[in-house]
């Protein structure tokens, strides 16, 4: 996998040894002790900041890591009674976006988000998490349903981009995203947005307008993929690491710019090392976010949302 983060050879060697010991450890006490020692060593190695040579590009690789938990994994780990609803009632059902009502710690909410596929078949079915107009229209339909019944909305963002294809253009990809950007701010219910993987430009933003925007520590959010940025500015893909760093796409960078309100922690080494732990680290963030927003009357919530968007400006006048 070309996308695997360039973890040190040391870590990879340790993983290898652990895997080899795994079977023996079932019956052999010594092997188990050795395995546990190696596991501890690996943990501490991963706890070290991974930003030795290029932090931003490492984050891009972590955000795209093939074992990173996806939206449905978080739904499974954090919510109960999830009832997936399909279709935009206009053209079709886009599997790159999933959503429906569910319960978070007993309380009804609406969850919606991008969904990537795990194996090749799923990847194709989910179109690598790249939504088409019908996906954005489905997301809005579900959000409006939530607003009708007063359910807070939890949006889980993880997409490389909106799909650049012929059919998507024919059906108005630009219009679908634009319309969401105009309609989502009107919803009179709390909008909690969690960018947990890739925040790919307009494809992410099309559902990611919110009252409180959280980004997981190793997620990225960018106006353009570093590869494309490199090919525009340097006319090749060889400067993608540099592009990643100048685009300021990490959670800390965006928090610093005021675009992201909160950075949620991940397990040492990244969410892919322990999806359950990642979800448990996210749980208090969701709980606190929802309860804080729930205390605001709808009128104030919408007003505050517009003010928040209005502040997203840095210019000289």
């Amino acid at each position, binding site marked *: 996998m070309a996308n695997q983060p360039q973890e040190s050879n040391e870590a990879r060697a340790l993983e290898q040894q652990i895997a080899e010991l795994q079977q023996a450890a079932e019956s052999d006490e010594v092997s188990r002790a050795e395995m546990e020692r190696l596991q501890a060593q690996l943990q501490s190695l991963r706890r070290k900041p991974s930003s030795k040579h290029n932090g931003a590009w490492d984050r891009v690789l972590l955000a795209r890591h093939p074992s990173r938990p996806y939206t449905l994994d978080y739904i499974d780990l954090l919510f109960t009674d999830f009832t997936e609803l399909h279709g935009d009632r206009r053209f079709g059902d886009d599997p790159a976006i999933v959503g429906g009502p569910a319960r978070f710690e007993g309380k009804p909410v609406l969850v919606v988000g991008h969904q990537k596929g795990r194996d090749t078949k799923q990847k194709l079915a989910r179109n690598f998490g790249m939504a088409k107009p019908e996906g954005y229209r489905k997301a809005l339909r579900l959000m409006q349903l939530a607003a009708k019944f007063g359910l807070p909305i939890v949006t889980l963002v993880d997409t490389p981009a909106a799909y650049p294809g012929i059919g998507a253009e024919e059906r108005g990809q630009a219009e679908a995203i634009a*319309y969401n950007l105009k309609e989502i701010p009107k919803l009179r219910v709390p909008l909690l947005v969690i960018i947990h993987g890739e925040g790919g430009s307009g494809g992410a933003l099309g559902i990611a307008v919110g009252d409180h925007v959280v980004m997981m520590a190793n997620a990225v959010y960018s106006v353009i993929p570093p590869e494309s940025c490199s090919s*525009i500015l340097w006319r090749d893909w060889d400067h993608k690491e540099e592009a990643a760093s100048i685009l300021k796409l990490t959670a800390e960078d965006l928090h610093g710019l005021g*675009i992201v309100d909160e950075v949620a922690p991940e397990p040492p080494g990244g969410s892919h090392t322990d999806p359950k732990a990642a979800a448990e680290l996210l749980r208090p963030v969701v709980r606190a976010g929802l309860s804080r927003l729930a205390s605001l009357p709808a009128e104030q919530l919408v007003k505050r949302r517009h003010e928040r968007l209005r502040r997203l400006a840095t210019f*000289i006048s």
Partner: protein
Amino acid sequence: MSWFHKEKQPLEAPKAKRVQTEGLWIKCENCKQPLWKKDLEANLFCCPKCNRHFRMTARDRLQMLFDEGVYTEHDQGIRSSDPLHFKDTKAYRDRLKKAQRETGLDDALLTGEGLLEGRRVIICAMEFQFISGSMGAAVGEKITRAIDRCIAGKLPLVIISCSAGARMMEGAVSLMQMAKVSAALARLEEARVPYISVLTDPTTGGVSASFAMLGDLNIAEPGALIGFAGPRVIEQTLRQKLPDGFQRSEFLLEHGMLDAIVPRKEQKGYVSRVLGLLAAPGASGEDPAS
């Protein structure tokens, strides 16, 4: 080598000869006819022979639409602060300075207030020569302020888009402008003030995926490239050639994304007529006769 051996290399066309009248003549890319620049200007930058619509500067746009070309410019001096301190092969600051020098503008958008066939309106025009008309914080802020003025004064809004999309050099800050401007348009909608979006060649990316597609009317000039993803990106993704006319105004009209294609010469009259119909007295706009 046989006598009938074919040259492998295609014959190269001779390099265009530089003539002394350089700058006075221009060649139409569509009908390949040489055009006298003054003729082109007099014809609102449309080819007198094939009616191909050439790009116009933001200033020429405002000149063309406002009565006698008279307008008051708003929000001058709003400039990019280079929030990311972006530097690739060249510093973004230097790119900005160069664009400012070449266009005489602070950023890629010009806002004017004035009369359009006697009706007071606000018009924003994008300047493609300024870093491909891309939207960063300055453009986003200027449009938002124009919307605020329209709400406060119940003035119709016209935005003429001409942009490659969000400005890469301002990263996610540019991306946020899409949300900011679109949310402001939701407030304009609530105030029932008409907004006409005029899409010109090209309107793509973050601009088409925000305010350009959100007009009460979305009208386009003939033959303009309009879409979310640029054609090159789609070709690279699909690894196939795109059909002729894909993502052109006529294609969008056929797919239900535009209200009309309006040739440049009819634009002013069209906008005026529509505003007269929508902004009737007693609704939201003002009575042009008053």
